[in-house]
């Protein structure tokens, strides 16, 4: 963390950020808007008005950290970062009561060893369930990572014959390790088939997003350092994740909260620089002149791709196909799957998950998800695809929200790709 962020001073109250904010769109009340939150933060920092901590906390905790407001703000007001900072401050004031999910979070962090043996099943789910009546999907089976490091050798036959070996690490994140282990398996398989050797260290854990977004900066930093160390000794140029929220946490937030004199600063930064989301990584492969393998589905089908709020395209990305125009870098993989037709979504609304937001504000979250399903309904697809653990949760949890879509399958795009390569 460099100097304290005072970008709230840049806000000119133009209102441009209102309609893009999922919580404003639902509430139509500025107290739940980016402009309102920034205004509260300004006042709180200038100490001109005494504000009720619980009320400010309500405005802050209802933010999904989706980043839509930051993307549209013409004045570089870093709303998400400001809100995280405010949460950290409130946490101290409220003696940790702010993080309602504190118990669940503790389990995620301390039982790392157990977590690796699908601890979410054992430790966290019951706790999260107690916190809320929220549905948590049953794990698909055994956790992906168990007792040791894994190495997967590149499939050199299928992948354009002789060329330098590309080595990548795989960062699963907790959900794709424990709840949807198949997604991890599909990611690794897709990489291997494209001639990439993959290393999966056992000691990796949660990316830390649930912690920092609850204002628990010290746990967040512990986890970041642990992840950096897990990959440190390896001679790899890239670390790939198939979860958009993990990449947001590692790429955006790690550099923001580590100071030069923090223990492990350079390891963490190095880790952060090497980590890419899976779609950007395929673009890197393409740029290296590698032909991304094409696959084919046995049965033709169509789908919408829900773009996760935290899916970051590489800065120099320019769409070069119809599918990329619709959904960004992930479009490259859709191009490679014969038999999959992508249908556009009109607004690309947020899914309403927002990590801990979904647990704390279940009803608000559900309303946002409903809006999402309205637009999905209009597109009338056979499948819903995405590439973020949080989005997978919300979309599969709530797909019954509209009668018409009760049984619609929700999948990670990488799984469809892996399937097309098999067939």
């Amino acid at each position, binding site marked *: 963390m460099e100097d304290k962020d005072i970008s709230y001073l840049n806000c000119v109250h133009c*209102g441009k950020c209102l309609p893009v904010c999922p919580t404003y769109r639902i509430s139509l*009340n*500025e107290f739940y808007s980016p402009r309102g939150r920034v*205004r509260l933060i300004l006042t709180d920092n200038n100490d001109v008005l005494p504000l009720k901590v619980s009320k400010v906390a309500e405005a802050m905790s209802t933010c999904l950290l989706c980043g839509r407001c930051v993307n549209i703000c013409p*004045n570089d007001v870093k709303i998400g970062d400001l809100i995280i900072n405010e949460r950290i401050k409130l946490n101290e004031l409220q003696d940790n009561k702010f993080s309602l999910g504190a118990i669940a979070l503790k389990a995620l962090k301390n039982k790392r060893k157990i977590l690796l043996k699908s601890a979410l099943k054992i430790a966290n789910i019951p706790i999260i369930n107690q916190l809320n009546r929220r549905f948590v999907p049953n794990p698909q089976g055994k956790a992906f990572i168990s007792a040791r490091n894994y190495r997967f050798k590149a499939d050199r036959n299928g992948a354009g014959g002789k060329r330098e070996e590309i080595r990548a690490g795989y960062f699963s994140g907790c959900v794709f390790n424990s709840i949807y282990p198949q997604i991890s398996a599909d990611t690794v398989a897709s990489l291997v088939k494209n001639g990439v050797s993959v290393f999966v260290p056992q000691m990796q854990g949660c990316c830390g997003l649930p912690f920092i977004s609850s204002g628990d900066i010290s746990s967040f930093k512990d986890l970041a350092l642990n992840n950096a160390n897990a990959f440190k000794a390896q001679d790899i140029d890239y670390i790939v994740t198939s979860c958009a929220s993990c990449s947001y946490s590692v790429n955006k937030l790690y550099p923001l909260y580590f100071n030069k004199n923090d223990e492990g600063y350079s390891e963490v930064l190095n880790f952060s620089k090497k980590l890419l989301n899976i779609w950007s990584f395929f673009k890197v492969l393409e740029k290296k002149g590698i032909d991304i393998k094409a696959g084919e589905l046995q049965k033709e089908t169509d789908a919408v791709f829900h773009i996760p709020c935290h899916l970051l395209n590489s800065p120099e990305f320019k769409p070069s196909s119809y599918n990329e125009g619709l959904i960004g870098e992930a479009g490259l993989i859709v191009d490679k799957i014969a038999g999959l037709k992508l249908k556009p979504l009109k607004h690309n609304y947020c899914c309403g998950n927002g990590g801990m937001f979904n647990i704390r504000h279940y009803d608000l979250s559900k309303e946002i998800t409903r809006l999402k399903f309205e637009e999905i309904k209009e597109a009338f697809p056979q499948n819903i695809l995405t590439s973020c653990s949080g989005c997978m949760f919300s979309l599969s949890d709530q797909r019954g929200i509209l009668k018409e879509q009760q049984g619609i399958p929700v999948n990670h795009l990488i799984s469809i790709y892996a399937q097309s390569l098999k067939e």
Partner: protein
Amino acid sequence: MNQKLIKEFEELLGKNRVLSEAEELLCYSYDATSKEFMPDVVVFPLNSNEISNIVKLCLKYNTPVVGRGSGSGFSGGSLPLKGGVVVSFTKMNHILEIDEENMFVTVEPGVINADLKSYLAEKGYFYPPDPASYEFSTIGGNVAECSGGPSAVKYGVTKDYVAALELITGDGEIINTGSKSVKDVSGYNLTQLMVGSEGTLGLFSKITLKFLSNPEANSLILVSFDDIGNGFNAAISLLKLRNRPSMLEFMDKSSIESVKSYFKSDIIKIEGAFLFIIEADGSRLEVGESVAEYEKILKEFSPVFLFSSGSEEEKRVIMEARKAISPSLRKYGDLKINNDIAVPINKIIEMLSFIEGISKTYNVPIINFGHFGDGNIHVNIMLNKDDADMVKRGEKAKFEILKKTAEAGGSLSGEHGIGLEKKEFMKLKYNDYYMNILKNIKKVFDPRNIINPGKIF
């Protein structure tokens, strides 16, 4: 504030449509000006009867009542200058009826302009008024401020589209003005009186708007000149054409600078000191012909840069940059005095060089951009809040500019309204007799002066 009034509101609307905690009120204390006033309570009505009852309660408790859309106004229109009740129309955001035969659409006031535009576009129709804030401002706010944007040069502004209104007066009565007939001269034209009334005569609950068919195609041209005289003459030539542009926006050097990062894509590189964004629309054939004709004319005036956009992506980048100017000026100073004067087109050059002189005399940066086609210039005086002397110089510069505008036969506000920001300048243009007429009109609609008091005069 009177706890009893809050209680009555809660009974009327339910607790969740009444805000009264300080933290919530703070989020309703501003608009896009840099002024702030705290309301005492914020209420969210859902229909005209509720609005009527809200106004009646305000009369009972003798409390001011101020309408608010998205709070994106540039003249303080939605600020509760004297405290009281803010009526937020954001939850009245439904499109009520579309009459495709007569080409009218009836909406609630909280509908966002962009949502109406895309609703109509899907059906092949077109609602032209396009303030740069169209993606977030409400139709109610647009009507109250008579907002307009780039398309005004060909299609006019909000007032040209409002056909009928339902509104609640300062007595709490519901009245209907206007009709869907194109010809309607039964009595005074109260509809047009309401358009641009800045929320001081009544609160709109239903708005009936005219719409057009969607033009089949459009195309953009970017052109810039080193010599302002050349640029001016080129623009005038385009306006004389039978197929005049559907947009003719200009940017001076500093506004170009402020949004340059938007143009950083290799699509467009800007040179020159004075830039125009020009649009042609119509059938595909017409657009092709117009673009060729515009280019031919522009080339006669030795432009330093001429670019015709082909792709949707290029068009989007250009329009994003245009919309970003106003909010991104902040890098020139943290306090903006924003004047949106309008002068007859043949006075634009004179006005701009006068402004340049004023900027030097008072040593304050002044950034100009706007709608050349209708003479509407956004004159932004950029100041540092903490530099008291500079703020004083800025105020003086503003005064000189508005005085000159009045002398040139122009208007003190092309689109943002008078509100709080310019009320002391009304006397530059109007004498007491005239001002009295305005005040008496206000009295007829709002005898107790509770609707948005303290604005305009």
